C-alpha cells in the first residue's frame, strides 16, 4: 500500500494549533495596546483638567460681575469635551444665580470649580470629574 503523507485530519489539527497561537498573540497584543492607550488617555485627561481649571480661573478674573456670575466654561479639546461649572460663595450674591450667601468676609469670593471631561473617542467611554475650591 502506498504510504500517504500528512492526512487532512493532521493538517486541520496543525492549522487549529497555529491559529490558536496566532489568536492568543493577537489578543495579548490588543490588550497591551489598549492598556497603553488607557494610560495615555488617563494622563492626558488629568493634565487637561488641570489646564481647564487654570483656564476657568482666568475666565473668572476677566469676567465683568455686573452682568452676573459666569456659570460655565466649555473647552472643546480634540479628544475630550470639557465643561467647567462654577459655584460662588459671596457675602452678597446680588444677581449671581449660582451662588451661596456666606457671612465670612475673609472667604468672600471663593468659588468651586467642577471640571468634567467626557471622551469623544468611540470605544473609550471615559468620564472624569474633579472639584476644587479656589480662594479669592
Amino acid at each position, binding site marked *: 500500500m502506498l504510504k500517504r503523507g500528512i492526512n487532512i485530519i493532521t493538517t486541520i489539527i496543525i492549522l487549529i494549533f497555529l491559529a490558536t*497561537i496566532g489568536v*492568543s*498573540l493577537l489578543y*495579548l*497584543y490588543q*490588550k*497591551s495596546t489598549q*492598556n*497603553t492607550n*488607557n*494610560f495615555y488617555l*488617563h494622563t492626558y485627561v*488629568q493634565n487637561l483638567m488641570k489646564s481647564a481649571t487654570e483656564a476657568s480661573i482666568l475666565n473668572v478674573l476677566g469676567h465683568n460681575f455686573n452682568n452676573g456670575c459666569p*456659570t*460655565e466654561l466649555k473647552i472643546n479639546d480634540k479628544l475630550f469635551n470639557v465643561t467647567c*461649572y462654577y*459655584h460662588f*460663595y459671596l457675602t452678597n450674591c446680588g444677581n449671581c*444665580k*449660582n*451662588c*451661596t*450667601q*456666606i*457671612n*465670612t*468676609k*475673609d*472667604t468672600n469670593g*471663593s468659588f*468651586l470649580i*467642577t471640571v*468634567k471631561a467626557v471622551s469623544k473617542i468611540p470605544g473609550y467611554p471615559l468620564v472624569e*470629574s*474633579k*472639584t*476644587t*475650591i479656589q*480662594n479669592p
Partner: protein
Amino acid sequence: MKRGFSFLEIIFALIISSLFVVVGLNIMAKTIYNYRVNYEYRVLNLKANVYQEKLTNLFKNVIPNTIIGDKCTISNNDCFNGNITNFDSLASITEKNENSQYPVIEFLKENNYIDYFAWNDTLKQNIPSSSKFVDLADTKIIDQNKNEYQIFVKYSDFPKVFSLLNEYFNDYGLSFSYKNLALLMSGQQDNGAISTIKNSYGYNGTPALKLFKILTYKHIISSNPNNNEDILTIEPYNNTTGIITQPYQTFFIIDSAYALVPKENSNGLLDIYLFHFYYPWEKETYKNARVKELFLTNLSKFIVKEIDGSVYVDFCVENPTLKINGEAVQVCREFFKY
C-alpha cells in the same frame, strides 16, 4: 540498467540532511523558546499595566502627608500580623532606610465616591454631595475645654454623603455609621505637617489630635438648593490641654485608613495585601482591618515614596516559574501619582 545510490552517496546525503536537521531543530527550538519568553513578557506587561492602574486608583484622593511607613520584618510574617516596631512619615524616610525597613505603607484617603455631583435641572448646574465649604464666621464654640464646635457647611448634602458611603460599606458586607468618620480640617492644597505625624491621625495608638468626630448633624433644605446646608457638631477625637484644634475653611471626610502589607509567598516573592476599613483615630491598627484582600501578586520589588506631596511607586512583577540564563523574567514600572 538503472543503478541505485552508492554507499558513499548515501553517507554524503545522510551527513548533509543531518546537518539540515540539526540546524532546523535548533532554529525550531529557539523559535519555540523565544515564543514562550515573548508570551511571558507580554503577560507580565499586561499584569504590570493592570497593577499600575489599581495602584493609581488606590492613591486617588490620598491625603498628602498622612502616608506612613511601618517598620517590621516581612520574612517571619511580622508585617502581615501587624507586629511593627516603629513607624514614620513616608516623606521623612530617607533613601538609606527606605522601604526595605519600612515595608508596610499606611495612609488616609477620601473615598473616591463622595465627590459626587448630580445634575440639577431646575438650577441648570451640578449639585455636590458636599462642598466641604465652612462658613467660618458662623462657627460657634459649644464647649471651649473640649474644643467642641458647631460648623455650617454651605451648599452641602451630608445625607447624600452618608448614603453613598452606606452603599459602599454594604458592598463589602459592612454596616456604616457616620460616628466612625473622621474630618480632617484643612485646605485642599494643604500638605499638613510631617513633624506631627505621631500625634495627628491616631496611627498605632498615638493621639489623633488633628481629626474631628461628628457628634450630630442636621441637614437644612432650602427652597433654593444653593442655600442647602449642613450644621455639624464636631470635636477632636483626642484632646490635649493647651492644644487647640479648630475648624478651617475646608476639610476632608475620611471613612477608613488603608494599608498595603507585603507577605512572602511560596515562590519567595511578595504578595501585597490591601487592608482597609479600620479606624486609627479609634485606636485601631491595620491588624483590626475588617477587609484584608490580596491586591498584587508575585512582586520582586515594591517601593512607595512620598515626594513633595506626590506618591511615587516603583514595582517589579516577576514570573516565578521561568528563568532565562538563570535570570528572572520580570517587568518593572515606575510612576508618579499627583
